């Protein structure tokens, strides 16, 4: 984890001081990691007309910090202090009440309605010392409340980890609608679902461009299936690759220089590299086996993929410029859908285990070490990393129909995030958008 020095504005005192080293939490998969117990009492309504905003806002914040995995959000029913009465600033808070319920951190938020806007003032305190660690003032249209609270949550997490969290990111997926499949997006917490590509055809395998402007996908709209992309802001689509046979499973290089995908124009599915607009295809695999599912390393120099050249599907890694593939997985006989972590240290994949159930694993591409992330909960497939590498989204049949779930990078804290009816598959976590 990057331990960059983060300057925290100690508002009120007008002082700037470097955060103490102990404010940083180790990464979730670090042996020293333990979730940081944090209390998030109800937002305090300042003035009138903000009761509904306060109610929704605190739910968003608790949910965000809960999904993040780094925190244990303490049960509000256990709180001793009355959030309606207690103040929002250090001098007005009885920290003993918070220490006594096990809190190490305390988030206090005041919220007001100002015309059409919501105005938030959030403070993060160290419960033991009463020190104010963070002050965030945010305002915007009331209908953007969720976005505002996500920004506050991002600031809180960044204080502890030094990097932005994913609360302002989106997840793309394929959704079954009337026997066909649409390409849709939703916020990382499952809210704000909207479909970008609904054309009464089967549309599959969405993949984000690195800056989040486009979503690549595969579609049967004009036969094929062909590779397309849709501009997220406008919904405009254009055809990227329509060679004979399959044009599927686009993955964009993180540096924006190229895309990789599977074509079968030579009568066998092979991995190709292309320019981001679908021109200049270069064949990277040369083997009479199925080769599919490319995923780029974070430095854009290597590509992980699936090949059944050994007789059954396994994960391999190949230089993006072309060259000999190296086998990465040696356990199991049905390993698929690699997704290389943004930190480079793990490749997620899903595997069929000895009981013929599909579960999610990760493999270290250098050492070959394998860790299991899901077990005994239906079939779990198509894992995709969050841009900070702390979380994983995947689809699971644990509740019947396939739905989308998020878990921490170590497999803990699994929860359903998709909210609608219908079958959700092929989730991919989108990139960070520019920080506001």
């Amino acid at each position: 984890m990057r331990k960059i020095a983060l300057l925290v504005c100690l508002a009120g005192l007008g002082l700037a001081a470097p955060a103490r080293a102990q404010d940083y939490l180790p990464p979730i998969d670090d042996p020293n990691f333990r979730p940081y117990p944090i209390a998030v009492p109800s937002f305090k309504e300042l003035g009138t007309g903000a009761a509904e905003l306060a109610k929704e806002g605190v739910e968003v914040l608790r949910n965000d910090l809960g999904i993040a995995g780094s925190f244990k959000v303490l049960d509000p029913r256990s709180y001793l202090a009355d959030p309606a009465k207690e103040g929002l600033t250090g001098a007005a808070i009885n920290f003993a009440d918070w220490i006594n319920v096990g809190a190490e951190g305390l988030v206090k938020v005041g919220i007001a309605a100002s015309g059409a806007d919501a105005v938030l003032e959030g403070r993060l305190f160290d419960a033991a010392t009463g020190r104010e660690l963070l002050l965030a003032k945010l305002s915007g249209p009331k209908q953007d409340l969720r976005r505002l609270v996500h920004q506050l949550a991002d600031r809180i997490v960044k204080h502890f980890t030094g990097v932005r969290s994913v609360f302002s990111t989106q997840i793309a997926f394929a959704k079954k609608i009337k026997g066909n499949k649409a390409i849709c997006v939703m916020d990382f917490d499952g809210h704000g679902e909207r479909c970008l590509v609904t054309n009464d055809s089967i549309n599959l395998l969405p993949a984000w461009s690195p800056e989040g402007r486009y979503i690549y996908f595969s579609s049967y709209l004009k036969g094929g299936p062909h590779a397309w992309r849709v501009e997220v802001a406008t919904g405009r689509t254009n055809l990227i690759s329509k060679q004979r046979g399959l044009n599927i499973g686009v993955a964009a290089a993180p540096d924006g220089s190229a895309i990789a995908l599977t074509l079968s124009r030579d009568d066998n599915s092979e991995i190709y590299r292309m320019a981001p607009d679908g021109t200049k295809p270069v064949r990277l695999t040369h083997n009479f086996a199925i080769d599919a599912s490319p995923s780029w390393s974070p430095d854009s120099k290597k590509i992980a993929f699936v090949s059944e050249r050994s007789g059954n599907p396994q994960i391999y890694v190949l230089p993006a410029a072309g060259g000999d593939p190296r086998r990465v997985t040696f356990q199991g006989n049905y390993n698929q859908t690699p997704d290389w972590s943004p930190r480079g240290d793990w490749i997620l994949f899903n595997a069929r285990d000895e009981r013929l159930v599909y579960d999610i694993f990760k493999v270290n591409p250098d050492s070959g070490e394998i860790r299991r992330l899901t077990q005994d909960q239906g079939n779990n497939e198509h894992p995709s990393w969050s841009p900070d590498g702390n979380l994983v989204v995947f689809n699971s049949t644990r509740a019947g129909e396939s739905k989308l779930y998020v878990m921490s990078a170590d497999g803990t804290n699994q929860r359903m995030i998709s909210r609608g009816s219908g079958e959700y598959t092929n989730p991919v976590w989108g990139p960070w958008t520019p920080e506001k």
Partner: protein
Amino acid sequence: MRNALARLALGALLAAFALALGGCPKKIPQPEIDAAERATADLDALKDCAPELVTAARAAMEKAQGLLAAEKYEEAKAGFLAAKQLADKARQECDQKRKAAEEAEKKRQAELAAQEAARAMGDVPAPAPAGPAGLVTVLFEFNAAELTDRSRADLEQNAEYLRAHAALRVQVEGHCDNRGSTEYNLALGERRAMAARQFLVKLGVDPERLEIISYGEERPADPDSTEEAFARNRRAEFRELR
């Protein structure tokens, strides 16, 4: 129409009585007569759904009119009341029958709509569009595109059919069960379609007549998650090209 005429005639008759008697006789049960006439006005429309009650109501009406003509007003009054009650009963029975029929129809429509919706959502497979008779679906083993003895026999049958129908062009669709990844299954489905096509070509079918497409796990023949359903879904299907 006939009832209206009868009513006019009866009215005229009563008027004549009244004139003859030099005043309205108090004993003529006029409200009962009117009520019975209104109640029996649509007996024709009821005779199909409550035939026995309609017949009884008509008989009662006739009898009451006879009594009225005979100036047996008290008995006539009872008769008209009975006729009205019988006609009302017939109407009730018809209403009930009609409502029951409407309910049944509504239920049937709702069931049809639900089935249609379920099919649209992909929960129930649409009845398979009839492919060219004689072209049979070929099945495959798990994670395999290799032909079995059974699938070779099926393809020989298909080749024979294609030889007999020389103008026919078909699309060979490769499909998988829904286990395993979307992408891998698209590749595997294509291999199945290719294997079927290749064997047909070996049996003498012109390759130009055979297009291939892979649907991976997207178009199951059976949406269930049982081994039987999986086995039916690992297949190559043949669709006539127009």
